[in-house]
């Protein structure tokens, strides 16, 4: 942890970056995002197994962009999101310095997309074992049981958009949900509005989701909505073999095709 704090302090002191985005101790015992802009701030930074949040979403915020060049303390999910954001032209190549704390406690500086890409290639699958198991358990249910499950869960949604706000890939300034000419998806958080919202979100993340699970963690009422985007992404990987968050070059599965894409349902 000291290595990280020292590194952050040095980067800030030498003016290499103007902000280090990382984690600090939160009031509830968990970790929360932290923005170190001075050497003193750097002492607040933390690194441990509880640093699970995906911080990449902050990189596309105007408030943060205004600060200047950023370094970001990056866990696996953050690294993947960095790549995907670069691929989607939201971050300029080399605009962000990723700081990765190794198991040995050393701090790696990944200054360009290639370095991040190589680091990501060494990581295990982006879908956590727990989430994979949940997906499998749901798929083992009958269609009606799955319907009942999602109906129960989604009716609890209050459309606070914590899922959207916490998602690094939901950087759109004007979401489909905000489009009112026409009003594609009802604003209301009634059952239809909720079903449509979460379907749209999952579809829009298919081929783009880095499976960090941030949306599920963010949900105040505890709906496991990340399972929807994770599933959509798994579907893309399974059918087209194009995983999101592995390359800084755009390879959007739904913006491409192969003439021999195999489906089984078109009559």
């Amino acid at each position: 942890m000291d290595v990280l704090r020292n590194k952050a302090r040095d980067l800030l002191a030498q003016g290499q970056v103007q902000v280090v985005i990382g984690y600090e101790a939160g009031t509830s015992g968990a970790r929360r995002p932290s923005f170190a802009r001075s050497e003193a701030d750097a002492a607040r930074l933390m690194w441990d197994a509880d640093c699970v949040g995906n911080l990449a979403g902050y990189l596309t915020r105007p408030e943060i962009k205004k600060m200047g060049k950023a370094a970001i303390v990056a866990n696996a999910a953050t690294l993947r999101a960095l790549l995907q954001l670069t691929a989607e032209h939201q971050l300029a190549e080399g605009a962000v310095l990723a700081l990765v704390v190794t198991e040995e406690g050393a701090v790696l500086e990944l200054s360009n997309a290639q370095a991040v890409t190589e680091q990501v290639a060494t990581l295990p699958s982006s879908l956590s074992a727990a989430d994979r198991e949940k997906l499998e358990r749901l798929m083992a249910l009958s269609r009606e049981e799955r319907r009942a499950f999602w109906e129960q869960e989604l009716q609890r949604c209050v459309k606070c958009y914590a899922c959207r706000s916490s998602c690094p890939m939901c950087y759109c300034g004007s979401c489909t949900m905000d489009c009112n000419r026409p009003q594609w998806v009802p604003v209301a958080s009634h059952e239809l509005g909720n079903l449509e919202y979460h379907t749209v979100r999952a579809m829009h993340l298919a081929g783009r989701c880095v499976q960090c699970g941030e949306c599920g963690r963010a949900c105040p009422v505890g709906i496991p909505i990340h399972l929807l985007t994770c599933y959509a992404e798994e579907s893309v990987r399974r059918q087209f073999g194009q995983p999101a968050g592995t390359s800084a070059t755009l390879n959007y599965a739904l913006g491409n095709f192969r003439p021999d894409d195999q489906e089984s349902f078109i009559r």
Partner: protein
Amino acid sequence: MADDVFEPKITAFVCNWCTYAGADLTGTSRLKYQSNVRIIRLPCTGRVDFMLIQKAFARGSDGVIVSGCHPNDCHYTSGNYHARRRWMVFNDLMEFMGLDMRRITFSWVSAAEGAKWATLVNEVTDHLRELGPYTEYQRLLNAGVA
């Protein structure tokens, strides 16, 4: 239509160049099919946003048909290939969310397949009539409003 027979409401999204023209050919050939379907003409299946399908159900459709040019025959060379990928994911996701995919029919109907269109519409209509109203979805329309 007899009162006691359920008449499904069917919305069809078709491309202008193949299926719309194919349905025109059905007409020119004077082939008959059941009148439950309402066709919405779009330039290409590539234009079929999955949200259109969603909205059709939100409007109380009991079934939706999406149809365009066969692979390799797209007027725009590849719009249907893009559409196909999108449907492959949409289909899969809808399964995962437990939605009734028997309600959606994807098909390729060319401008020359007037007969196929008639058969398709008749089969879909009969099937939906068997399935009955899509209450599972229609229940949602006013659920959650106090």
